[in-house]
């Protein structure tokens, strides 16, 4: 392995005595696109955080170009040519795009920052990631999540990396941008840059990478070239056990007219210019998927139903009662209760610093109180039920929720909402950034809820999930439902065609 740019030798890292990485030997070659796979908590994040100077290893050494190095800060890693794009974006919202792109090494004139040069440089880099539509003088705060991610990529490129680390870099991107990133990585590969790529989307890994490494429980399991193993074998390596059927079986498609009044009916729902007359219904006992490209109004629809948006027009009937709930508090306590598993679990789903117990109970204090006090016995019982129902892996329920892995954090969010015994469950991309095992548990849970007569409305950016989980799928395109598929009509082809708003049969 003479051409390896970065090499780990026996790297170990512990957090409060818990092993995150154990004697890991790992290397990454120049001019390769290297995928790192593993369940959440497998040690992938720790691996890249050590490489990028955020964490220091407890044992072992890192070689860069054959020379031992140690990075005490992200800055020193950057200077050595290792640039990391983190899942949690590293952009400063109150600075402009141009300022963010050259934040650590701005162009200077007479010792002061040269703004004109800075804007020029930003334009150049934005053009390279095909984001000419982004105004370099706009505040990052004003941009959508997908645009921010592209700015983040432009910023990383600006540091002319030798090793580029992408941690779930495409999770918020539109398909067009994903293609741009693919092209870009191919270009970088030709220039001899090593890219480390972390993703939970198998087809992405398949399309992009030439080398794959699997991690499990803090250990490096195996590294192999693409094509050496089947998808099934890779998944097996990741979870260490054989996977059964990925999705729980669906009930036979019911004939719609017999089902009676739906639990949730939406007609002509409009908001700003993001929702333009959505028609939709969800019956008790079924899972309805929201499909389409990112940013076609799926998230806004769920927020609108949960009472988060102001000035929403259109007719909504929930459990026979007309009207949109005025707030999340109203939505969860109406006659027909709504629950929303939000997009961003770290800010909207959880209070990270508070205990698992407090987070689990946050939505259901009314149910466990004897006014005006919270009943400690009842609350302990409720928490235990929630933890066992979703099989949340915790040390103690009094630990802060941030000590859990991503998948278990998401389980806490879901368990919290199940405690109010909701009639309509809204899920906003609940499996984003979550390991395979937890994903399957969430699929099963959704089916169990439907079987118990609940209405489930489920947005996912992953077509395979929509195909595997949903009884019906409504595909959104610029704020409208452009297609409704059910049963066998739900295929990857039909969903992709509908999300591009083209008619395959006609074409």
């Amino acid at each position: 392995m003479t051409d390896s740019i970065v090499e780990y030798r026996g790297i170990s890292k512990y957090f409060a005595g818990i092993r995150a990485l154990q004697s890991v030997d790992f290397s990454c070659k120049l001019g390769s696109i290297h995928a790192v796979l593993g369940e959440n908590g497998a040690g992938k994040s720790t691996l890249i955080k050590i490489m990028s100077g955020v964490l220091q290893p407890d044992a072992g050494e890192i070689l860069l170009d054959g020379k031992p190095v140690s990075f005490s800060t992200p800055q020193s890693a950057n200077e050595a040519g290792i640039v990391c794009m983190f899942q949690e974006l590293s952009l400063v919202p109150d600075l402009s795009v141009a300022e963010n792109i050259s934040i650590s090494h701005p162009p200077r004139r007479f010792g002061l920052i040269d703004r004109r040069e800075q804007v020029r440089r930003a334009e150049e880099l934005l053009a390279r990631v095909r984001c000419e539509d982004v105004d370099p003088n706009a505040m990052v705060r004003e941009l959508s999540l997908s645009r921010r991610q592209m700015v983040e990529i432009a910023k990383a490129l600006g540091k002319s990396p030798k090793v580029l680390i992408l941690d779930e870099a495409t999770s918020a991107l539109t398909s067009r941008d994903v293609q741009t990133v693919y092209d870009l990585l191919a270009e970088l590969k030709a220039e001899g840059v090593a890219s480390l790529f972390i993703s939970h989307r198998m087809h992405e890994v398949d399309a992009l990478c030439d080398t794959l490494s699997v991690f499990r429980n803090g250990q490096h399991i195996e590294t192999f070239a693409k094509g050496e193993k089947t998808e099934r074998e890779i998944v097996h390596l990741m979870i260490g056990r054989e996977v059964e059927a990925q999705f729980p079986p669906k009930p036979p498609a019911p004939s719609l007219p017999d089902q009676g009044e739906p639990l949730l009916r939406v007609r002509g729902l409009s908001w700003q210019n993001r929702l333009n007359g959505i028609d939709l219904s969800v019956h008790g006992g079924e899972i309805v998927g929201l499909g389409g490209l990112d940013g076609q109004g799926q998230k806004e629809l769920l927020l609108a139903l949960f009472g988060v948006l102001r000035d929403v027009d259109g007719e909504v009937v929930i459990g026979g009662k007309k009207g949109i709930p005025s707030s999340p508090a109203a939505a969860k306590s109406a006659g027909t209760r709504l629950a929303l598993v939000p997009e961003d679990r770290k800010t909207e789903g959880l209070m990270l610093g508070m205990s698992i117990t407090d987070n689990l109970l946050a939505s259901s204090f009314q149910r466990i109180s004897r006014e005006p006090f919270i009943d400690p016995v009842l609350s302990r019982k409720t928490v235990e039920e929630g933890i066992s129902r979703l099989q949340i892996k915790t040390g103690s329920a009094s630990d802060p929720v941030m000590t859990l892995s991503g998948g278990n954090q998401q389980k806490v969010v879901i368990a919290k909402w199940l405690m109010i015994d909701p009639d309509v469950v809204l899920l906003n991309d609940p499996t984003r950034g979550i390991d395979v095992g937890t994903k399957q548990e969430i699929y099963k849970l959704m089916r169990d809820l439907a079987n118990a007569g609940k209405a489930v409305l489920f947005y996912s950016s992953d077509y395979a999930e929509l195909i595997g989980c949903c009884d019906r799928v409504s595909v959104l395109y610029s704020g409208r439902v452009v297609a409704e598929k059910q049963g066998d009509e739900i295929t990857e082809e039909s969903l992709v065609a509908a999300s591009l708003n083209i008619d395959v049969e006609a074409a």
Partner: protein
Amino acid sequence: MHKSTLKRYFSQNLGVVTASLLLIALYVTYNFMHPRGFSTAVAVQNTNEAAAIAFLAMAQTLPVLLGGLDLSVGAVMTLSNCVASVLVNGTPGEIVFGMLATLATGTAFGALNGCIVVYGRIQPIIATLATGAIAIGLALIVRPKPGGDVDGDLGWALTNSVWDFADTYELADGGDAWWLQPFVDIPVPFLLVVLVAVCVWVPFKRTVTGRTVYAIGSAEGAAFMSGLPIDRARIAAFTLGGFFASCGGLYLAIQTSSGNADLQQAGAYTLNSIAAVVLGGTSLLGGVGGAIASLVGAGILRVISFYFRILDIDPLLQPLIEGMVLLVAVSFGAIRTIRVKNKLDLFR
């Protein structure tokens, strides 16, 4: 399409633009109502009263941009004031040394604040509450009783118009040189504040350290991950705050030709500096705003108090009315939350 530069400036700086318009409207109206309005004498008097709070507002801006508060700015001003009252006199050389020593005192104290916050890992609000008390204590040692003998010529020259300045030091033909004529009516304190702002704040904002201050207040995690010099920026912010506070103290000493270790005055200045920063449109959450905006805020705060004199309002009512005006003014900042269509945006 990209927005035009001017349009973008207004939309991104709505707070300070509104505050500036308010200040201009208030001050012009005041001059119309004043029997000797639009005269050099009135301008000189007004700027004299506003200079110290203007410096303090700039001092407070930096910690606020970081997302914190500095409760010691008034005390550092008082300490510098007392040091100046002892040192700023004698030969011209001694006077210059005294002024530099005064500024160095405040700057060093600011640096101390910064080091305590960074290396002691103590929240700014509580660290500066403690160091503020220490500063007052030191001030009382330097000057147990109010008094002092600051150089009289200097006092006269710096607290009047440009003509008086030139006249005092016999510069530019005693102020009668033709090239000085367009400027003779400008009050010197106004020039001093502008000079400090332009020579210190404006360049600072364009350094990496200055930008890091904004980045920390806006998203500290992102600032760290971007490899910015976080500790250096924190210390620099408090140091610069100390410098501005000492400018205020020095000016106060020159203006009153004395020093006074007055605890109440220090506290009042600290609170007013926070009010000025907020009025200027700087966010208490950090990351948005600037020292120029705070100067505008300080101006508004002072102009309101000028109105009490010409309107003959009972001085006893002054705190009540000032409080209400402040409340109304900061409420403008809350108007945006009514227009927000996605309630989640309120928490971001």
